């Protein structure tokens, strides 16, 4: 089926070469990092994780969100999703690959990463994260490829794929729960030490991932003859709305606990992120931008008649996705490290090289996504031709 990605319009090839160029620049930047060390980033002794780990965390959520389509399609038998579910599965594949790349980019000694498997340490959450993420990647590749292949031949997917589909549902929940446990079990980092972390991760994932999927589905319809279905898009819009409200609610709970308890260590990260401490305000504009975007998105999504207008829906989804990207892909990590373990402040900001590497990883993800979608769309377009 992969050959279908080898023929396309000029616009398709221009997009592919643009992505390849960004990947190329990212590789050059990474080569420098590999030789000179992570000193080329903005990371420090006090803020030892930054953009890479933030992006990793955010993208685990994007990957997990595919489950929202799978549940409706296979468990609830809501067949309006049957055409769009492949887009979710392939989005999950590219998101997990980006996660792996971000983890690799963050390693001080990437050549030694196999040590995680050579010296398996079940007590470490990282070990489990490696297991569940790779398992999830495999599941989605197998399910997506098999169902699409069956679709192309005009037959039903083989029976053996059904149990894998059911397995992928709790598996999706597990990848984001385990990722939350990376943070939520650390003593002394007040911002992360919260029982609702995993719940918040899932809520934000089921808002952000499907929001991206709506944008992608609208783009697919615009640039191809394959229509993922207006009803399916509306149904996802509803999921996004509920999940985002749950996410904002959970964030509100964090604020309540920190400020009503009045425990300094719990309040300080929030102070730093939203108002700054002692003139250290690098994060403040970003966090407020994230908050405003969240409010705007929710104000639109909550009204069904606004949501039904696809242009407005697309705008709301972009706002929501950006809001979560800032909050989870950046603020969440930095808030854990500032103030530091001594209640001192060391600020963090990514460097140009770090940003280029990050862009390179995103471009790799989009390249994989484009190729997979191209295959899926080609198959779907053939189907449509047969049906009519």
């Amino acid at each position: 089926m992969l050959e279908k990605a080898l023929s396309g319009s000029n616009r398709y090839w221009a997009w592919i070469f643009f992505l390849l160029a960004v990947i190329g620049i990212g590789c050059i930047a990474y080569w420098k990092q590999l030789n000179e060390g992570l000193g080329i980033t903005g990371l420090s002794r006090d803020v030892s994780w930054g953009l890479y780990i933030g992006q990793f965390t955010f993208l685990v959520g994007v990957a997990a969100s595919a489950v929202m389509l799978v549940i409706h399609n296979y468990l609830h038998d809501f067949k309006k999703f049957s055409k769009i579910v492949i887009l979710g599965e392939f989005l999950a594949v590219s998101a997990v690959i980006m996660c792996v790349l971000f983890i690799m980019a963050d390693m001080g000694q990437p050549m030694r990463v196999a040590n995680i498997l050579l010296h398996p340490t079940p007590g470490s959450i990282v070990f489990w994260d490696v297991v569940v993420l790779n398992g999830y990647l495999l599941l989605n590749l197998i399910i997506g490829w098999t169902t699409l292949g069956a679709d192309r031949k005009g037959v039903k997917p083989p029976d053996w794929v059904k149990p894998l589909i059911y397995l992928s549902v709790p598996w999706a929940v597990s990848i984001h729960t385990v990722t939350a446990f990376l943070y939520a079990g650390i003593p002394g980092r007040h911002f992360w030490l919260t029982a609702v972390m995993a719940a918040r991760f899932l809520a934000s994932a089921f808002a952000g991932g499907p929001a991206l999927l709506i944008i992608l589905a609208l783009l697919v319809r615009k640039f191809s003859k394959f229509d993922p279905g207006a009803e399916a898009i509306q149904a996802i819009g509803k999921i996004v709305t509920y999940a985002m409200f749950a996410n904002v609610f959970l964030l509100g709970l964090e604020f309540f606990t920190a400020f009503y308890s009045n425990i300094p260590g719990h309040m300080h990260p929030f102070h730093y992120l939203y108002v700054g401490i002692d003139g250290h305000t690098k994060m403040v504009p970003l966090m407020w931008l994230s908050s405003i975007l969240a409010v705007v998105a929710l104000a639109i999504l909550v009204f069904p008649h606004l949501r039904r207008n696809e242009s407005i829906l697309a705008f709301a989804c972009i706002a929501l996705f950006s809001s979560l990207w800032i909050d989870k892909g950046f603020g969440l990590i930095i808030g854990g490290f500032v103030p530091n373990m001594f209640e001192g402040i060391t600020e963090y900001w990514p460097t140009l090289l770090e940003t280029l590497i990050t862009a390179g990883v995103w471009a790799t993800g989009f390249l994989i996504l484009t190729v997979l979608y191209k295959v899926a769309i080609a198959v779907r377009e053939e189907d449509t031709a047969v049906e009519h």
Partner: protein
Amino acid sequence: MTINRRDFLRIAGLSAVVGVGAPVVINNLGKAGLEAAQIHPDPRALKGKRWGFVVDVSKLATDEDYQKCINACHDIHNVPSHKEPRHEVKWIWKDTYEHTFPNTAEDKIMNKELQEKNFLLFCNHCQKPACVRVCPTKATFKRESDGVVMQDMHRCIGCRFCMAACPYGARSFNYVDPRKDHAIKVENKEFPTRMIGVVEKCTACYERLAIGQQPACAEASNGAIVFGDLEDPNSEVRKLIAEKYTIRRKPELGTQPSIYYVIGGGEHA
């Protein structure tokens, strides 16, 4: 001189055998040496079930007193000093009362002398270390025999999870190459230097304990840092803890840190 094909192959083959074989043999000799050292430990080696420290800051008066302890450690362990503060590597350092005990920092009317006092901070060699719990490769591990929290810089993958997990900020990462730009002023050939991308920290001078010496900081401290076995009721550290009022950093986190601070600060304290 001409070399025919057969001779060339013979020489090439022989060089390959020597080239590949020699390091294998040398490595194995090295390994045999290491095992022998374990089978016959140095009779002078210090023995304890759980090493710990009592740091009496009332015995540290001048900046020089602190610096002596810091230099003693950093010099023998090839700890690099970088110009860029972000890349700082430190095993033992000086910090204020407020930073050492941040949960008590809200008190604005406390004893001035204490508030202005500096403390010596280094790895707490916790009984239940969070860094060990999170490490995905066992590169950091607690030595069962004596409780020292060790760091294997050759196994570390540089994920920095331990840095996120340590509540005491005891860990440093080699963001830049410590062997470059004269970051190590005078190299101690007895102790390994590190490479980029690995985490390091105080390892309670395991290499000195093995030959019967006290940790370098304790030796240089003029009695301000006392080292000993916390499990032994007759040890000097236990006697000091029994006699004086001591506090530990962030005991509420359940990590059971093994550094006890005698804070002094006034006659009635």
